[in-house]
Protein backbone atom coordinates (compact mmCIF):
# COMPACT_ATOMS: atom_id res chain seq x y z
CA UNK A 1 0.00 0.00 0.00
CA UNK A 2 1.48 3.35 -1.05
CA UNK A 3 1.44 6.43 1.24
CA UNK A 4 -1.17 8.00 -1.09
CA UNK A 5 -3.43 4.98 -0.62
CA UNK A 6 -2.93 5.20 3.14
CA UNK A 7 -3.88 8.90 3.21
CA UNK A 8 -6.90 8.23 0.98
CA UNK A 9 -8.05 5.34 3.17
CA UNK A 10 -7.62 7.36 6.37
CA UNK A 11 -9.59 10.31 4.98
CA UNK A 12 -12.38 8.08 3.65
CA UNK A 13 -12.69 6.18 6.93
CA UNK A 14 -12.68 9.41 8.94
CA UNK A 15 -15.36 10.81 6.58
CA UNK A 16 -17.54 7.74 7.06
CA UNK A 17 -17.04 8.07 10.84
CA UNK A 18 -18.42 11.60 10.79
CA UNK A 19 -21.42 10.52 8.69
CA UNK A 20 -22.06 7.83 11.30
CA UNK A 21 -21.75 10.40 14.11
CA UNK A 22 -24.23 12.68 12.30
CA UNK A 23 -26.75 9.85 12.07
CA UNK A 24 -26.22 8.90 15.73
CA UNK A 25 -26.80 12.56 16.64
CA UNK A 26 -29.99 12.53 14.58
CA UNK A 27 -31.24 9.61 16.65
CA UNK A 28 -29.98 10.72 20.08
CA UNK A 29 -30.53 14.47 20.13
CA UNK A 30 -33.81 15.60 21.67
CA UNK A 31 -35.41 18.02 19.18
CA UNK A 32 -35.37 19.20 15.59
CA UNK A 33 -32.91 22.06 16.22
CA UNK A 34 -30.33 19.85 17.94
CA UNK A 35 -30.72 17.20 15.25
CA UNK A 36 -30.02 19.81 12.58
CA UNK A 37 -26.71 20.60 14.33
CA UNK A 38 -25.69 16.96 14.00
CA UNK A 39 -26.76 16.61 10.39
CA UNK A 40 -25.25 19.83 9.03
CA UNK A 41 -21.92 19.91 10.85
CA UNK A 42 -20.96 16.24 11.06
CA UNK A 43 -22.15 15.42 7.52
CA UNK A 44 -20.43 18.49 6.06
CA UNK A 45 -17.16 17.43 7.66
CA UNK A 46 -17.77 13.86 6.48
CA UNK A 47 -18.30 15.07 2.90
CA UNK A 48 -15.20 17.27 3.12
CA UNK A 49 -13.06 14.33 4.26
CA UNK A 50 -14.50 11.94 1.64
CA UNK A 51 -13.93 14.51 -1.13
CA UNK A 52 -10.40 15.18 0.17
CA UNK A 53 -9.64 11.46 0.17
CA UNK A 54 -10.90 11.03 -3.39
CA UNK A 55 -8.98 14.15 -4.49
CA UNK A 56 -5.74 12.75 -3.10
CA UNK A 57 -6.45 9.44 -4.82
CA UNK A 58 -7.26 10.95 -8.23
CA UNK A 59 -4.39 13.45 -8.53
CA UNK A 60 -6.16 14.99 -11.55
CA UNK A 61 -6.97 18.72 -11.37
CA UNK A 62 -10.30 18.29 -13.14
CA UNK A 63 -11.46 15.63 -10.71
CA UNK A 64 -10.19 17.76 -7.82
CA UNK A 65 -12.14 20.79 -9.07
CA UNK A 66 -15.24 18.63 -9.51
CA UNK A 67 -14.89 17.30 -5.96
CA UNK A 68 -14.45 20.87 -4.69
CA UNK A 69 -17.61 21.84 -6.54
CA UNK A 70 -19.47 18.85 -5.04
CA UNK A 71 -18.36 19.87 -1.54
CA UNK A 72 -19.37 23.51 -2.11
CA UNK A 73 -22.80 22.56 -3.46
CA UNK A 74 -23.29 20.05 -0.62
CA UNK A 75 -22.25 22.68 1.91
CA UNK A 76 -24.65 25.25 0.46
CA UNK A 77 -27.49 22.74 0.36
CA UNK A 78 -26.81 21.71 3.97
CA UNK A 79 -26.71 25.24 5.38
CA UNK A 80 -29.65 26.59 3.41
CA UNK A 81 -31.88 23.59 4.11
CA UNK A 82 -30.90 23.61 7.82
CA UNK A 83 -31.79 27.30 8.03
CA UNK A 84 -35.13 26.80 6.26
CA UNK A 85 -36.11 23.80 8.42
CA UNK A 86 -35.05 25.64 11.61
CA UNK A 87 -37.00 28.75 10.59
CA UNK A 88 -40.11 26.72 9.83
CA UNK A 89 -39.82 24.82 13.14
CA UNK A 90 -39.31 28.07 15.06
CA UNK A 91 -42.33 29.71 13.40
CA UNK A 92 -44.42 26.62 14.07
CA UNK A 93 -43.26 26.56 17.70
CA UNK A 94 -44.15 30.24 18.13
CA UNK A 95 -47.59 29.73 16.56
CA UNK A 96 -48.40 26.57 18.52
CA UNK A 97 -50.88 26.86 21.40
CA UNK A 98 -49.51 26.82 24.97
CA UNK A 99 -50.69 23.27 25.71
CA UNK A 100 -48.98 21.97 22.61
CA UNK A 101 -45.74 23.74 23.54
CA UNK A 102 -45.82 22.15 26.95
CA UNK A 103 -45.79 18.73 25.33
CA UNK A 104 -42.46 19.43 23.62
Amino acid at each position, binding site marked *: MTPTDLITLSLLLAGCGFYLAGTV*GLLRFPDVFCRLH*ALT*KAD*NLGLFLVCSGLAVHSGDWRIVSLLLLIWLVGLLAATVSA*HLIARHAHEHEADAPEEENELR
Partner: protein
Amino acid sequence: MTTEPTKPAAGSFRTGLSWFAQAFLVLTLIWIALNGLSGFWAGLAAASAGAAVGTYFARGQTYPWRPLKWLAFIAFFIIESIRGGVDVAARAMGPTVRIDPVFESHSIAIPPGLPTILLTSFISLLPGTLSVRLREHDHELIVHALTPGSMASVTRLERALAWMFNVERADG
Protein backbone atom coordinates in the same frame (compact mmCIF):
# COMPACT_ATOMS: atom_id res chain seq x y z
CA MET B 1 -8.81 51.47 7.21
CA THR B 2 -11.75 50.29 5.17
CA THR B 3 -12.78 50.87 1.61
CA GLU B 4 -16.37 51.28 0.63
CA PRO B 5 -17.83 48.45 -1.39
CA THR B 6 -19.40 49.29 -4.72
CA LYS B 7 -22.53 51.26 -3.92
CA PRO B 8 -25.80 49.40 -4.40
CA ALA B 9 -27.21 52.07 -6.74
CA ALA B 10 -30.09 49.94 -7.99
CA GLY B 11 -30.41 50.45 -11.71
CA SER B 12 -26.87 51.70 -12.10
CA PHE B 13 -25.27 50.35 -15.25
CA ARG B 14 -21.87 49.96 -13.58
CA THR B 15 -23.21 47.89 -10.68
CA GLY B 16 -25.11 45.69 -13.10
CA LEU B 17 -22.04 45.18 -15.25
CA SER B 18 -19.91 44.33 -12.22
CA TRP B 19 -22.51 41.80 -10.99
CA PHE B 20 -22.78 40.31 -14.49
CA ALA B 21 -18.97 39.98 -14.79
CA GLN B 22 -18.65 38.21 -11.43
CA ALA B 23 -21.55 35.84 -12.13
CA PHE B 24 -20.21 35.15 -15.63
CA LEU B 25 -16.75 34.30 -14.31
CA VAL B 26 -18.10 31.94 -11.63
CA LEU B 27 -20.44 30.18 -14.09
CA THR B 28 -17.64 29.82 -16.66
CA LEU B 29 -15.36 28.26 -14.04
CA ILE B 30 -18.14 25.84 -13.08
CA TRP B 31 -18.58 24.91 -16.75
CA ILE B 32 -14.84 24.27 -17.12
CA ALA B 33 -14.83 22.16 -13.94
CA LEU B 34 -17.77 20.10 -15.20
CA ASN B 35 -16.91 19.84 -18.86
CA GLY B 36 -13.27 20.80 -19.39
CA LEU B 37 -12.65 22.86 -22.51
CA SER B 38 -14.91 20.79 -24.74
CA GLY B 39 -17.96 22.74 -25.82
CA PHE B 40 -16.30 25.89 -24.50
CA TRP B 41 -18.31 28.25 -26.73
CA ALA B 42 -21.57 26.65 -25.65
CA GLY B 43 -20.33 27.09 -22.07
CA LEU B 44 -19.63 30.78 -22.66
CA ALA B 45 -23.13 31.21 -24.12
CA ALA B 46 -24.71 29.36 -21.16
CA ALA B 47 -22.65 31.35 -18.64
CA SER B 48 -23.62 34.62 -20.36
CA ALA B 49 -27.29 33.67 -20.32
CA GLY B 50 -27.11 32.61 -16.65
CA ALA B 51 -25.28 35.79 -15.65
CA ALA B 52 -27.76 37.94 -17.58
CA VAL B 53 -30.77 36.27 -15.94
CA GLY B 54 -29.11 36.56 -12.52
CA THR B 55 -28.32 40.23 -13.09
CA TYR B 56 -31.87 40.94 -14.20
CA PHE B 57 -33.66 39.10 -11.38
CA ALA B 58 -31.32 39.01 -8.40
CA ARG B 59 -28.69 41.68 -8.70
CA GLY B 60 -27.00 42.44 -5.40
CA GLN B 61 -24.24 44.60 -4.06
CA THR B 62 -20.82 43.75 -5.44
CA TYR B 63 -17.55 43.74 -3.54
CA PRO B 64 -14.03 43.92 -4.94
CA TRP B 65 -12.36 40.51 -5.34
CA ARG B 66 -9.52 39.96 -2.92
CA PRO B 67 -8.26 36.44 -3.63
CA LEU B 68 -5.73 36.34 -0.78
CA LYS B 69 -8.31 37.43 1.79
CA TRP B 70 -10.76 34.90 0.37
CA LEU B 71 -8.19 32.13 0.67
CA ALA B 72 -7.51 33.14 4.28
CA PHE B 73 -11.24 33.14 4.97
CA ILE B 74 -11.64 29.70 3.37
CA ALA B 75 -8.83 28.40 5.63
CA PHE B 76 -10.58 29.95 8.67
CA PHE B 77 -13.89 28.45 7.59
CA ILE B 78 -12.47 24.97 7.00
CA ILE B 79 -10.78 24.98 10.43
CA GLU B 80 -13.98 26.20 12.11
CA SER B 81 -16.16 23.66 10.30
CA ILE B 82 -13.77 20.86 11.27
CA ARG B 83 -14.05 22.05 14.90
CA GLY B 84 -17.85 22.18 14.49
CA GLY B 85 -18.00 18.65 13.10
CA VAL B 86 -15.67 17.21 15.74
CA ASP B 87 -17.57 19.02 18.52
CA VAL B 88 -21.01 17.76 17.50
CA ALA B 89 -19.70 14.25 16.73
CA ALA B 90 -18.15 14.04 20.22
CA ARG B 91 -21.44 15.15 21.78
CA ALA B 92 -23.42 12.64 19.70
CA MET B 93 -21.13 9.67 20.33
CA GLY B 94 -20.37 10.33 24.01
CA PRO B 95 -21.82 8.08 26.72
CA THR B 96 -24.21 10.90 27.69
CA VAL B 97 -25.48 13.65 25.40
CA ARG B 98 -23.75 16.75 26.81
CA ILE B 99 -25.92 19.57 25.49
CA ASP B 100 -27.76 22.45 27.09
CA PRO B 101 -29.61 23.96 24.12
CA VAL B 102 -30.64 27.58 24.20
CA PHE B 103 -31.92 30.22 21.76
CA GLU B 104 -29.79 33.36 21.62
CA SER B 105 -30.30 36.64 19.83
CA HIS B 106 -27.40 38.16 17.89
CA SER B 107 -27.39 41.75 16.64
CA ILE B 108 -25.88 41.68 13.17
CA ALA B 109 -23.02 44.19 13.01
CA ILE B 110 -22.07 43.81 9.34
CA PRO B 111 -23.85 45.30 6.30
CA PRO B 112 -26.84 43.55 4.69
CA GLY B 113 -26.43 41.69 1.42
CA LEU B 114 -23.66 39.17 0.79
CA PRO B 115 -21.92 39.55 4.20
CA THR B 116 -25.17 38.89 6.08
CA ILE B 117 -26.14 36.03 3.76
CA LEU B 118 -22.78 34.34 4.32
CA LEU B 119 -23.03 34.92 8.08
CA THR B 120 -26.50 33.36 8.20
CA SER B 121 -25.40 30.40 6.08
CA PHE B 122 -22.05 29.61 7.66
CA ILE B 123 -23.20 29.93 11.30
CA SER B 124 -24.81 26.50 10.97
CA LEU B 125 -21.43 24.89 10.28
CA LEU B 126 -19.58 26.49 13.20
CA PRO B 127 -19.13 24.77 16.57
CA GLY B 128 -22.44 24.62 18.45
CA THR B 129 -24.51 27.18 16.52
CA LEU B 130 -27.43 26.99 14.08
CA SER B 131 -29.00 29.99 12.34
CA VAL B 132 -32.75 29.94 12.90
CA ARG B 133 -34.27 33.14 11.65
CA LEU B 134 -33.62 36.76 10.77
CA ARG B 135 -35.73 39.42 12.48
CA GLU B 136 -35.97 43.21 12.75
CA HIS B 137 -35.43 43.76 9.01
CA ASP B 138 -32.43 41.42 8.95
CA HIS B 139 -30.63 43.23 11.79
CA GLU B 140 -31.16 40.51 14.38
CA LEU B 141 -30.45 36.81 14.02
CA ILE B 142 -31.95 34.14 16.23
CA VAL B 143 -29.34 31.45 16.82
CA HIS B 144 -29.83 28.03 18.36
CA ALA B 145 -26.80 27.12 20.46
CA LEU B 146 -26.01 23.64 21.76
CA THR B 147 -24.44 25.22 24.86
CA PRO B 148 -24.69 28.82 26.11
CA GLY B 149 -20.96 29.39 25.46
CA SER B 150 -21.19 28.56 21.75
CA MET B 151 -22.06 32.12 20.65
CA ALA B 152 -18.39 33.15 20.62
CA SER B 153 -18.00 31.43 17.26
CA VAL B 154 -20.67 33.73 15.74
CA THR B 155 -18.65 36.81 16.72
CA ARG B 156 -15.48 35.22 15.34
CA LEU B 157 -17.23 34.52 12.02
CA GLU B 158 -18.63 38.04 11.87
CA ARG B 159 -15.18 39.54 12.46
CA ALA B 160 -13.72 37.32 9.74
CA LEU B 161 -16.43 38.35 7.26
CA ALA B 162 -15.95 42.06 8.07
CA TRP B 163 -12.24 41.62 7.46
CA MET B 164 -12.77 39.73 4.21
CA PHE B 165 -15.22 42.26 2.78
CA ASN B 166 -13.26 45.20 4.23
CA VAL B 167 -16.31 46.62 5.98
CA GLU B 168 -16.72 48.15 9.43
CA ARG B 169 -18.68 46.27 12.08
CA ALA B 170 -21.42 48.42 13.55
CA ASP B 171 -20.05 47.87 17.07
CA GLY B 172 -16.49 48.61 15.95
